């Protein structure tokens, strides 16, 4: 049995590499047939049908990935594998990187166009799933889950930390200007800028509204479709927060400042926690109505959590629902990096701008925290490190702040304090997205 399999395997392999070797088909079969007498008899009888069979195999070969592969595909598949590796080995946001990595591989399997296979072909299954990204359906659902799992009590206890979340949004607007100077049009630049908000769902939401390849600019040209590069840049830099932020913290914050201990936040009553989502929803969306899908869902999710009566709904929102949406979002965003569309000069520029925007956002948060310290006295002083958590990237950047704080003083636990700017960063970047959308949408 093994022998038969082996012979069959060798035979099929030879057929496949025949074009590469430039060998005549008869030569090949003769070689093999000398060892297998039964095959030889068959071949002699059915030379015609064999030719047809070869034609069929050739035809099939033209449909395989091997015939259609390009260097771009291989490069992107390699990137997908690196994403998966980073997620597994270093535990950098594995819940994002592994679906995206798998999606990158799925999206870059070469295929023959026109069979409703690829993510960009109308009617394909992947295209239907991608619909949720293109129309910005997934991000609000993710925000619902985030709202249902976020505890805003540290923010309610210390409302002034909310300003740190606003300071980190400097990154958004600075990147926006950078993109403009690099020659992107206004809507494209707006979508690229939001990478600095360090918030994947917000970035996808805004880019699906502004840089979706459908909208028409004032000069008559259509905007580029940048959803893929922006989402990948946002998510990969979010995963790299533990790499990007610590050097900046050490650079900007002095050793003494890093050791500042903050007084424990006061206890917050349930009533305050219930009032927070309602009031915050009304206030923020009155200021920036375009961010309604994001902020509305965020605070709605939080109300489900804090009302105390809808634990079932909150539980679904923060576990099953957000998991389902994350799976679909991750895979389709990954798959949208199809090499022939993704590998462009623009994507590279976006990646560069993304890195800069993270740096600026982190610096903005850190420096603003130092600035706030000028006005605060004694016990009220804040540890400037928590400014870095003002870029959203919940909860990774808060965790980075915590570990950095522990490095300077092993008894200084900053996690609880860092969560306040962290969640206000989410609110801030959603507001910023709303503002950009209302200007450019």
């Amino acid at each position, binding site marked *: 049995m093994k022998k038969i399999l082996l012979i069959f395997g060798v035979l099929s392999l030879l057929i496949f590499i025949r074009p590469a070797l430039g060998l005549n088909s008869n030569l090949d079969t003769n070689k093999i047939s000398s060892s297998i007498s039964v095959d030889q008899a068959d071949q002699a009888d059915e030379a015609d049908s064999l030719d047809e069979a070869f034609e069929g195999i050739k035809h099939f070969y033209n449909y395989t990935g091997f015939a259609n592969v390009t260097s771009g595909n291989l490069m992107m598949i390699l990137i997908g594998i690196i994403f998966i590796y980073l997620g597994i080995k270093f535990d950098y946001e594995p819940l994002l990187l592994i679906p995206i990595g798998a999606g990158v591989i799925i999206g870059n399997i070469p295929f023959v166009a026109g069979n409703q296979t690829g993510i960009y072909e109308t009617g394909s299954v992947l295209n239907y799933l991608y619909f949720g990204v293109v129309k910005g359906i997934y991000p609000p659902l993710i925000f619902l889950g985030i709202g249902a799992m976020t505890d805003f009590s540290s923010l309610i206890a210390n409302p002034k930390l909310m300003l740190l979340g606003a300071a980190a949004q400097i990154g958004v607007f600075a990147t926006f*200007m950078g993109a403009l100077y690099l020659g992107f049009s206004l809507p494209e630049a707006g979508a690229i800028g939001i990478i600095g908000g360090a918030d994947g769902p917000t970035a996808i939401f805004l880019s699906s509204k502004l840089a979706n390849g459908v909208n028409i600019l004032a000069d008559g040209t259509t905007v580029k479709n940048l959803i893929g590069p922006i989402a990948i840049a946002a998510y990969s830099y979010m995963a790299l927060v533990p790499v990007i932020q610590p050097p900046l913290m050490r650079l900007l914050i002095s050793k003494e400042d890093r050791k500042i201990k903050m007084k424990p936040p006061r206890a917050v*009553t349930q009533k305050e926690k219930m009032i927070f989502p309602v009031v915050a929803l009304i206030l923020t969306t009155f200021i920036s109505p375009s961010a309604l899908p994001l902020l509305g869902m965020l605070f709605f999710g939080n109300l489900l959590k804090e009302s105390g009566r809808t634990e079932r709904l909150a539980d679904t929102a923060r576990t099953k629902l957000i998991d389902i949406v994350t799976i679909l979002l991750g895979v389709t965003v990954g798959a949208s990096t199809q090499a022939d569309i993704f590998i462009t000069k623009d994507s590279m520029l976006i990646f560069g701008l993304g890195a800069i925007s993270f740096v600026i956002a982190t610096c903005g948060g850190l420096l603003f925290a130092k600035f706030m310290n000028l006005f605060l006295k004694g016990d009220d002083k804040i540890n400037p490190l928590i400014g870095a958590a003002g870029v959203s990237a919940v909860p990774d950047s808060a965790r980075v702040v915590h570990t950095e704080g522990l490095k300077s003083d092993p008894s200084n636990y900053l996690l609880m304090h860092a969560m306040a700017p962290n969640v206000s960063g989410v609110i801030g970047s959603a507001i910023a997205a709303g503002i950009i959308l209302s200007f450019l949408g």
Partner: protein
Amino acid sequence: MIYIPLFTDQISEGYVILFTGLIIVFSALLTLSLFFKYGLPVMLYIYKVITKRKDKKISEIKVEADRNFTGEIAAAIGAAVHIYLDEQHDHESAILTIKQIKKPYSPWSSKIYGTQNRL
């Protein structure tokens, strides 16, 4: 016919968005923080007056006794309890077997038993 906007125009519009955007973001979060700093206590006070029920405030609980009891200690205790509760289950063998019972006859499975011994 709309003409292609000049490069400088785009940049200047960008600066407009930059400044207004930053101001709006800051003012939005500032309003929010001001509200929770000053507005919320007032609201809670009014609520208390309306309901006329004595609301137990955290500040009314004497803090002198547990001045050293910080959130960190509470977190440590919480973590310890959590770990302890997690370890309540001992590791059982995962192999489940259905054992043959010693006495194969049981009134529960007997039809004749049921017909002879009326309840």
